[in-house]
């Protein structure tokens, strides 16, 4: 019922030229591993400044979907259209590899669950942030270092740690460094895979506060994959619930959590321990 409505709305938006442009338009994405479905039939639009959460249990296909969207996995079918600065909506699945790589260094960012996957562990904290700036053409050492210091401050890492390697950082600090490294180039779209997973609750709260502030100040759009419903309630405007590779429910975050329509979502919401 809900899905039917959203796909109708989706179609009508195609013809409505007065509506603002979506930043990302996902059309009928499917990815299979042999006989097994990774994810299938995924459609949605993401607008500038919007944060969408994707929830579901392990194996529901949420990470597969995120990796297809971010260009880490090639979907078997479907389109991932991104509103590029030069040419408007372009399908990033069929885009040339160098172009896609450029996109993932400039307008896109990917925050991994394990900070080690997103950081260069043998390079200093300042180097980790500066490296992404250099990848987009920054060459002035002083400016790069100043920018790195500014970003370390924004993610609450003391300037005195700039020359330390991330291996000397705590898990929470590594995660914040990863975020700084990703956001320094001013991306428009951030993919996050369980960004607060494995962190202490106090560190999680700090990170959530930080992410909310950055989303508002920079007008970021974000897609956050998590199994933590409390995280999406605080961060996401919209929610997509996945089970066995299918999207079973979509809607406004608080509506999906407070008045879930699908049997699986009802089970998911009622299984959360109250604190």
């Amino acid at each position: 019922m809900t899905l039917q409505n959203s796909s109708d709305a989706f179609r009508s938006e195609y013809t409505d030229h007065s509506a603002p442009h979506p930043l990302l338009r996902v059309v009928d994405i499917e990815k299979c591993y042999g006989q097994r479905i990774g994810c299938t039939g995924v459609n949605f639009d993401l607008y500038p400044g919007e944060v969408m959460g994707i929830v579901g249990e392990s194996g529901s296909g949420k990470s597969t979907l995120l990796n297809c969207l971010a260009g880490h996995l090639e979907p078997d079918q479907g389109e991932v259209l991104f509103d590029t600065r030069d040419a408007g909506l372009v399908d990033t699945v069929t885009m040339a590899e160098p172009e896609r790589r450029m996109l993932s260094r400039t307008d896109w960012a990917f925050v991994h669950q394990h900070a080690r996957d997103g950081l260069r562990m043998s390079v200093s904290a300042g180097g980790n942030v500066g490296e992404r700036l250099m990848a987009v053409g920054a060459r002035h050492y002083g400016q790069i270092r100043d920018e790195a210091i500014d970003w370390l401050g924004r993610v609450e890492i003391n300037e005195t740690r700039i020359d330390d390697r991330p291996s000397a950082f705590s898990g929470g600090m590594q995660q914040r460094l990863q975020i700084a490294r990703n956001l320094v180039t001013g991306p428009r779209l951030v993919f996050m895979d369980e960004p607060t997973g494995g962190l202490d609750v106090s560190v999680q709260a700090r990170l959530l506060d930080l992410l909310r502030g950055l989303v508002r100040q920079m007008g970021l759009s974000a897609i956050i994959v998590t199994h933590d419903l409390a995280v999406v309630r605080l961060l996401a405007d919209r929610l997509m619930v996945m089970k066995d590779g299918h999207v079973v429910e979509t809607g406004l975050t608080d509506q999906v959590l407070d008045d879930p329509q699908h049997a699986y979502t009802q089970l998911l919401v009622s299984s959360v321990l109250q604190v």
Partner: protein
Amino acid sequence: MISIQNVEKSFTLHNQGAAVITVMSDANVEVTPGECVALAGASGAGKSTLMRMIYGNYLTQSGSIRVDGVEVVGANPRDVLDLRRTTLGYVSQFLRVVPRVPTLDVVAEPLLALGEDEGVARDKAATLLARLNIPERLWSLSPTTFSGGEQQRVNIARGFVHPYRALLLDEPTASLDAQNRETVMCLIEEAKARGAAIVGIFHDESARDRVCDRVLDVTSFLPKGDA
């Protein structure tokens, strides 16, 4: 301003034998600018449910709910969020905030979301917190550690910091002392004077009699046969 027509609401409990519970049928309400309507009825009659449906927090099965001309039933999440940002405020009984965020920022947030200048937003938030007698030394702390009454006043400040043209108030005076209750009464009267349409739940009868123009018993919206 708020127009509810032929609205029906049911819950399907998939994990309890797919039981379908219809809690409301044929609900009709009109609230004009500057008017305050109190929802009445016994506990469980559907007062909060109706408020949540107006806010888009609960899905509505059929009928129409319009707020400032925007149809909430079947709306895109984007349109509901936009309505909430600009037009429709909600003071709930529970304060839900990101831990660690200072009270002043919690109250200023609705203005910042509308693109208001940070300094102006914080000034407005400070004025309201002072009016609601939240001591200034608490403004830099997160409200998560506050007492129930303090949290409620923070919630009220958040709901009145932007001049919403439609307001939903869920027991705004429930755990307040006489002085703070008076402040909230004044805030509601000021909102009415600037033309806000208000729907509220007031268990406090003297508060209800003072600010509400009429009382609507939601028991009449219970499905026929149950009533």
